[in-house]
C-alpha cells in the first residue's frame, strides 16, 4: 500500500484529527491532533502493520504556538515502509497520552522526551528522568535552555 | 659392610631431630614460596604465549624479576581496611586462607630417604616433613579449613559482591570436597593405608602385581582413571581455578570475596590461590602418579609432575569459559558425586573378586 493510500484511509477514519500532510524527499509526514494519538497509533499498528516504532522525539518550536511537536517515526517490517506522525503540544500544560501501550519501545523514548524536552506523557508507567540526574532542574533540549548549562558564563568561542 | 640406617627420633637424638626438622620445614617452605612466586610468572608467560602476546618482559631479564617487583609493590601499598568492615575478621581471613594451603605441604613426601652420617651413625631422613599415618585425612581436613577463610573474607568485608563471592565459594567448596574426598577413598581401599608415604610406596610395585609388565609402575592413575578425573576436576573447583572460578568471577562479582582487599592482604589471597594450586598438584602427584617415583632422581620426578599439573591448570584457564552457579552445583552433586560413589562400589567389588 502506498503512503498516499495509507494517508487516505487514515483521513477516512480520523478525518477530524488530521491537521496536515506533507511530502518531503519521499517521506510522508502526517500531523494529527494529540487527543486521539493512541487510537491513531493503534490503528496504524493494527491496520497498516507499522509494528516498529523507530523513534519518538520532541521538537521545540519556540515562539510558535503550539510550541512543541511530538514526532513518531514508524516502520513496517513487512513492507519496509516508513511514515511519520506528528502531534503538536501546547507549551502550557504540555502533555500527551503515552503510546507505550501500543509499542513497548515508547517507554524509554517518552522518558527521554520528558527528561530533555519536558513533555509529560499521560498514563506512562514509569515517567522518570532517564539521561539527566533525577534531581536535575529544567529540560536541556528546550530552545530557551542555555547551551553551556545553567548558571554559567555563556561560551564566547565559535559556538556563541 | 652395609649399615642399615637409623631413623631419627625425637626421644633418642632430640637436637639432631629438631635441627633436621627445622631444615626440612625451611626448605619446603622456601621452595613452595618460590614456586608460588614463579607460578604467577609462569602463568603470565604461558597464557601470554597462548594468547599471542609476550607476558612480562620489562623487569629483569625476560621479566624474571616481575614476581618480586609485584610482591614489593603490594607490600608497600597502603593497606585499606573498609570502615564498615569487621576489622578483626577482615585481617584474619587472608591468613586463614594461606595457612591451610601451606600446612598441607607438610605431609607430602617429595622424595625417598636422604641418608647422612652423624657422629659415625648413619641416619635416614625421609624427604617429607611429617609422615602422618592419617595423611590423606589431614589433607582433606586442611582443604576444608580453607573455606573458612573465604567465607570470613566475604562476610567481614561488608560488601555485597564479597558476600556473594563468599556464599558461592562455601557452596562450591563443600560440594566439591565431597566428590574429591570420595574419589580418594578408592585409592586407600587399594593401598590399605592412609599414610601418603605408604601410598607412594604401594605405587612403586609393578602394575597389578604382574612382573612381566614391571616397566609400567603401579600408579593409581592406571587402575583408577575415573577417580583421577574426578579428583582433578574437583580440585580445580576447590582451588577456584577456571572454569570454576565463580567465587572471584571477575566479570560478575568484580573480584568476589577479595573485592575489598588491598596491598599485602590481597597478595596473601593470591599466594593462597597459587599455594593451593601447588598443594593440589602435589597431592594428585602423590596419590595418582606415583609421587617421587620415575626415571630421574626422587624429588626431580616429583617437581616435574607437579609442574606438569600446574601447566595443565594454566592451560585450562586459557581455554575455557566460566560455568554458571547452578551448572556448577549440578555438576558437583548430580554427576561427580554419584560417579565417585559408583567408583567406590566398583573398586570394592573388584578388590573382593581379584585380590
Amino acid at each position, binding site marked *: 500500500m502506498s503512503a498516499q493510500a495509507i494517508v487516505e484511509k487514515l483521513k477516512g477514519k480520523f478525518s477530524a484529527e488530521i491537521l496536515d500532510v506533507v511530502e518531503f524527499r519521499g517521506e510522508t509526514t502526517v500531523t494529527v491532533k494529540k487527543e486521539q494519538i493512541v487510537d491513531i497509533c493503534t490503528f496504524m499498528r493494527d491496520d497498516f502493520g507499522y509494528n516498529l516504532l523507530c523513534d519518538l522525539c520532541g521538537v521545540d518550536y519556540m515562539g510558535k504556538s503550539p510550541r512543541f511537536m511530538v514526532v513518531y*517515526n514508524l516502520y513496517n517490517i513487512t513492507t519496509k515502509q516508513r511514515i511519520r506522525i506528528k502531534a503538536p503540544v501546547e507549551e502550557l500544560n504540555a502533555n500527551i497520552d503515552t503510546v507505550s501501550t501500543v509499542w513497548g*519501545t515508547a517507554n524509554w523514548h517518552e522518558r527521554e522526551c520528558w527528561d530533555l524536552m519536558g513533555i509529560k506523557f499521560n498514563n506512562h508507567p514509569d515517567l522518570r528522568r532517564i539521561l539527566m540526574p533525577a534531581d536535575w532542574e529544567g529540560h536541556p533540549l528546550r530552545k530557551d535552555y542555555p547551551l553551556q548549562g545553567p548558571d554559567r558564563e555563556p561560551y564566547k568561542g565559535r559556538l556563541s | 659392610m652395609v649399615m642399615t640406617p637409623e631413623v631419627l627420633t625425637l626421644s633418642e637424638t632430640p637436637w639432631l631431630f629438631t635441627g633436621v626438622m627445622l631444615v626440612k620445614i625451611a626448605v619446603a617452605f622456601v621452595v613452595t614460596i618460590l614456586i608460588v612466586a614463579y607460578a604467577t610468572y609462569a602463568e603470565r608467560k604461558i597464557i601470554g604465549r597462548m594468547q599471542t602476546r609476550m607476558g612480562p618482559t620489562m623487569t629483569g631479564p625476560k621479566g624474571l624479576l616481575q614476581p618480586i617487583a609485584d610482591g614489593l609493590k603490594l607490600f608497600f601499598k597502603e593497606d585499606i581496611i573498609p570502615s564498615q568492615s569487621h576489622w578483626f575478621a577482615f585481617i584474619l581471613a587472608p591468613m586463614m586462607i594461606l595457612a591451610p594451603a601451606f600446612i598441607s605441604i607438610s605431609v607430602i613426601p617429595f622424595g625417598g630417604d636422604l641418608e647422612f652420617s652423624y657422629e659415625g651413625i648413619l641416619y635416614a631422613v625421609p624427604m617429607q616433613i611429617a609422615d602422618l599415618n592419617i595423611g590423606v585425612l589431614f589433607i582433606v581436613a586442611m582443604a576444608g579449613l580453607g573455606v573458612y577463610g573465604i567465607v570470613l573474607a566475604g562476610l567481614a568485608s561488608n560488601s555485597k559482591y564479597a558476600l556473594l563471592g563468599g556464599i558461592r565459594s562455601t557452596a562450591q567448596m563443600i560440594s566439591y570436597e565431597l566428590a574429591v574426598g570420595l574419589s580418594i577413598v578408592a585409592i586407600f581401599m587399594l593401598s590399605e593405608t592412609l599414610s601418603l608415604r605408604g601410598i607412594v610406596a604401594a605405587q612403586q610395585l609393578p602394575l597389578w602385581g604382574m612382573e612381566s609388565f614391571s616397566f609400567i609402575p603401579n600408579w593409581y592413575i592406571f587402575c583408577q582413571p575415573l577417580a583421577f578425573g574426578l579428583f582433578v576436576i574437583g580440585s580445580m573447583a576447590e582451588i577456584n581455578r577456571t572454569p570454576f572460578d565463580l567465587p572471584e568471577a571477575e566479570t560478575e562479582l568484580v573480584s568476589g570475596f577479595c573485592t575489598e582487599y588491598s596491598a599485602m592482604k590481597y597478595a596473601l589471597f593470591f599466594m593462597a590461590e597459587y599455594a593451593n594450586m601447588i598443594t593440589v598438584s602435589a597431592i594428585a602427584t602423590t596419590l595418582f602418579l606415583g609421587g617421587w617415583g620415575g626415571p630421574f632422581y626422587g624429588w626431580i620426578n616429583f617437581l616435574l609432575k607437579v609442574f606438569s599439573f600446574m601447566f595443565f591448570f594454566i592451560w585450562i584457564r586459557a581455554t575455557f569459559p566460566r560455568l554458571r552457579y547452578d551448572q556448577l552445583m549440578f555438576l558437583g552433586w548430580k554427576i561427580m558425586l554419584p560417579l565417585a560413589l559408583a567408583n567406590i562400589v566398583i573398586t570394592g567389588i573388584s578388590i573382593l573378586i581379584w585380590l
Partner: protein
Amino acid sequence: MAANTNETMTINMGPQHPSTHGVLQLILELDGEIVVKATPHIGFLHRGIEKLSEHRTYHQIIPLTDRLDYLAPMSNNLGYVLAVEKLLGITDEIPERVQRIRVIMTELTRLKSHLVWLACHALDIGAMTVFLYCFRERECITDIYEKVSGARMTSNYFRVGGLADDLPDGLEGEIRTFAESIPAHVEEYEGLLTGNRIWQKRTVGVGEISAEAAIDIGITGPALRASGVDWDLRRDNPYCGYEDYEFEVPVRTGCDTFDRYRVRLDEMLQSAQIILQALDKLKPGPTLADCPKIVLPPKKDVVNNIESLIHHFKIVTAGFEPEPGEIYQSVEAPKGELGYYLISDGSSHPFRMKIRPPSFVNLQGLPQMVEGKLLADVVAVIGTLDIVLGEIDR
C-alpha cells in the same frame, strides 16, 4: 529454584563494574543468585550531543557523531552524512567511488564492532583467550583507519558529499588481504567457542526474547535477526549502493544468546564478502560530489584556486543552508538501526537532530531478558545485546 522468601538483596551493578561495558548502572534485586528485578540506569555519559549539534554547522557535527558509538565511528558518520545529503537532496550526486569506499569502510567498521563485541562477550563469560585473538584482528582495522583518516578510533572520515580524502596508495591491497583472512579467523573463534560445552551451557537458552516481544521493545539489528525476523536495512531499504552487492542476511530462530552469537559471526563473514565485492568494483574517480556550495574542496585546491578558497571559507565559517524540511535516515549500524532525524529551518544549523541509537532501544529489552535468571546471565545478556554507552547516553 523458586523464590521462597520475600527478602531480596539489592546490589548496584555499575556504574563502575568490569562487565557493564562502560557506565551502565543496573540495580539488581537478587533472591540468592536469582534476579528478581533489574532496573537499568543510564545517562552517566550524557554529553548533550543533540543539544550541541543545534549550535554547530552541519559539517561541524560529523566529529560529534564519532563519539556516539565509539566502537563503530564510521557507521555513525555514514548515517549522519547520508541524512544531511538526503536533507539537501544531493543523494543521487554522490560519485560511485565515494559510495564504494563508504561501503568498504562501514563494513570494516562492522567487523571492528563485532570483534570488540565478541571479545568482550567471551571475556564476560570467562573465555579470556578469545578477547586477545579478536583484538589482534581489530588492530588491523584500526591500522586501516589510521591510514585513511589519521585517527585510530574517532575517524571523522566521511564528509557531506564525499570523503575527507581518497584511499592512500596500496591500502586496497591491505584491505583485501585482511578481508580474505577473516574466514580463517572466524573459524578460529568458532573453534574456541561454538563447540565448547561450557560456552553452549552459558549461552543456549539464555536471554531469550521472542520475535513479537523483540519488535515491541524495538530491538533491531543482529539481536532481532537471531529472533527470526528477516530484516536488514542494507537489503530492505538500501542506501549507499548496497543493492549492488550480493550478500546474505543471516537469520536464526533460537532467540537466545547463542544464536545472537552465531548471527554476528555469520555477519562478519558476509561483511568480508561485501568488502571484497566492493574492492572488485572500486574504480578510480572523484571522491567529492560536484556541489561546490556544500562540499568542502580538497586542500590542494584551497591553496591553489581562489574559487575553492572562497567556497572553503564560506562553508567553514557560515556553513550551508538546506531548505526547510525534515527527514529521517537510518542505516544498519553494527548494533542495529541507527537513525538520524533531522529538521532544517533553513539556517546553517540543524533545527533539531534526534539520533535513534540502537543500543538505547536494545537495552530496554534487558529487564525482561534477565528477570528470573541468574546473576551470571545478566553479564551474558549485557554482552549479547552489544551495548555501547556512548551511544545510549549521547
